[in-house]
């Protein structure tokens, strides 16, 4: 127990307090500068772009991973090759974001129209009439969606696994009764499965929100936040290592912490409920 306490204190509790303190100090942490770092975070154009992109990630990534995960869990439940299909979709969870980024880097590869495309996506665009190849990672209209797509590709399997386990927990009798009463599969999905799995969906969605707030690897590796794809965590890394402004970097970290506080409260509540049940 002593060793665990040592790790928790030195690596988590002390740094959290220290970072909160540093966020009120200047660039080299020598002088007190009040809220100026926070002012910077909410007024600087690059930071605002990062916050806006994180919001886009938050909405799209969370809704699609959870939604698609639920649909896949629901559909695979009724075919014989369920295990195989789920393993394929779950597979990207085992590899790193860096490897996933290489995989998609080649999918997104762009050559000007007229030259043979070597990326699968643009080759497909090229072969369809009326479509032009797209510079997926460069064009500011699509590049954020391309990066979010990679994130979805990695994490949907995670949602699917948890939601699928929740789905199997629904008593089969309820579903059969609904079917005998003539309910369509569509209605069963919306009026029985979704409400009954409300808690599981909430847990999975919370997890996705926490993941997405801290999204770093995909952006760092694929675009390094250039061309309008900046996100908060990458911005913090830049403040730390490129500009050596530890005050601003800490303020960004504090913003991240504040953003997950609802999740902390949610976890604590869930834990309390579990304990009283036992």
């Amino acid at each position, binding site marked *: 127990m002593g060793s665990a306490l040592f790790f*928790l204190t030195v690596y*988590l509790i002390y740094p959290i307090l220290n*970072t909160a303190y540093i966020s009120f100090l200047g660039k080299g942490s020598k002088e007190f500068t009040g809220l100026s770092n926070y002012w910077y975070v909410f007024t600087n154009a690059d930071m605002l772009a990062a916050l806006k992109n994180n919001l886009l990630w938050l909405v799209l990534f969370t809704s699609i991973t959870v939604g698609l995960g639920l649909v896949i869990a629901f*559909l695979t439940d009724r075919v014989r090759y369920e295990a195989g299909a789920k393993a*394929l979709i779950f597979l990207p969870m085992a590899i790193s974001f860096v490897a996933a980024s290489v995989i*998609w880097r080649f999918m997104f590869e762009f050559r000007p129209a007229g030259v043979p495309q070597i990326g*699968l996506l643009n080759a497909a665009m090229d072969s369809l009439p009326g479509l032009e190849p797209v510079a997926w990672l460069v064009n500011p209209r699509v590049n954020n969606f391309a990066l979010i797509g990679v994130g979805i590709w990695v994490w949907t399997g995670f949602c699917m*696994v948890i939601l699928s386990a929740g789905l199997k927990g629904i008593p089969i009798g309820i579903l059969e009764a609904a079917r005998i009463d003539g309910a369509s599969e569509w209605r069963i999905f919306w009026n029985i499965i979704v409400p009954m799995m409300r808690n599981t969906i909430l847990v999975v969605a919370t997890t996705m929100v*926490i993941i997405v707030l801290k999204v770093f690897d995909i952006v760092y590796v694929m675009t390094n936040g250039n061309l309008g794809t900046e996100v908060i965590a990458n911005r913090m890394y830049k403040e730390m290592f490129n500009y050596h402004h530890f005050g601003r970097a800490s303020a960004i970290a504090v913003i991240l912490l504040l953003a997950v506080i609802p999740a902390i409260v949610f976890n604590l509540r869930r834990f309390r409920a579990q304990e009283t049940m036992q």
Partner: protein
Amino acid sequence: MTEKVVRGLSRSLVHMVIISICLVWTLPSFGLLVNSFRSRRDTVATGWWTSLKTPFELTVENYVDVLTGQSQHDRKKADAPSILRDMITGHGMGRAFLNSLIISVPSTFILIMVAACAAYALAWMRFPGRDLLFILVVALLVVPLQMTLIPILRLYNRLQLAGTFLGVWLAHTAYGLPYAIYLLRNFFMALPRGLFESASLDGASPFLIFYRIVIPLSIPSIASLAIFQFLWVWNDLLVALIYLGGTRDVAPLTMHISSMMSSLGENWHLLPAGAFISMVLPLIIFATLQPYFVRGILAGSAKG
């Protein structure tokens, strides 16, 4: 009759949807696998699907080049022993693979030792502040790593731990700890109480109960935890970037690939082989130990 047709149609629709989703999920990786075996000339000029016809023109050259960190054309001696030596001592991915192992294995072992003791104490021993301590663990589950980077880095610079494996092991242990304690404590709590009572009536010390009863009974959940932590550390980029700095000698695979990606041009055609080398171990673990992996995810879906 029509009802049967409708049901048949919707069944084939279900199959079509599932199969197309599976294709979207596998084609990108499959394409990369094919590219990793194509020559430089082919990779930069045409799509991977053009190589899917006989005669196959595939090569393992990319793997040798990326592992040794030098191109075959520059190589003076091409015999197996000298290639093997370059893989281990060179600045290629062979070295990075070794570094990833050196980082991941101890990070996993230390975590399990520390977490198992703490979880046992939290589950079965009485001491003041126990509940408060566990509430703290639950709260720490989702705290962003980012909150800890600057103070720890400063501490490491002062203690000369920055750029060392020891520094990274300890950091990964600490970051994995809340989840590990949470997972194991819940599992230990589920063990039957009578087991402990009869053992301690027989005069067994808490220490003996822990080693002789609790640990053997918990092998499955310890296995899930080990797989989780190992993959987490193996796939980590951020922690390595921060605490290992830019040093090539200690860089793990993720850092190596990420620097290959930012220094485009010359070695672009080696990226697919490099990415697959980093994926080999996770894929083997996934294929052989998937049930444990899934159990770990289901047991505590709230890692920070």
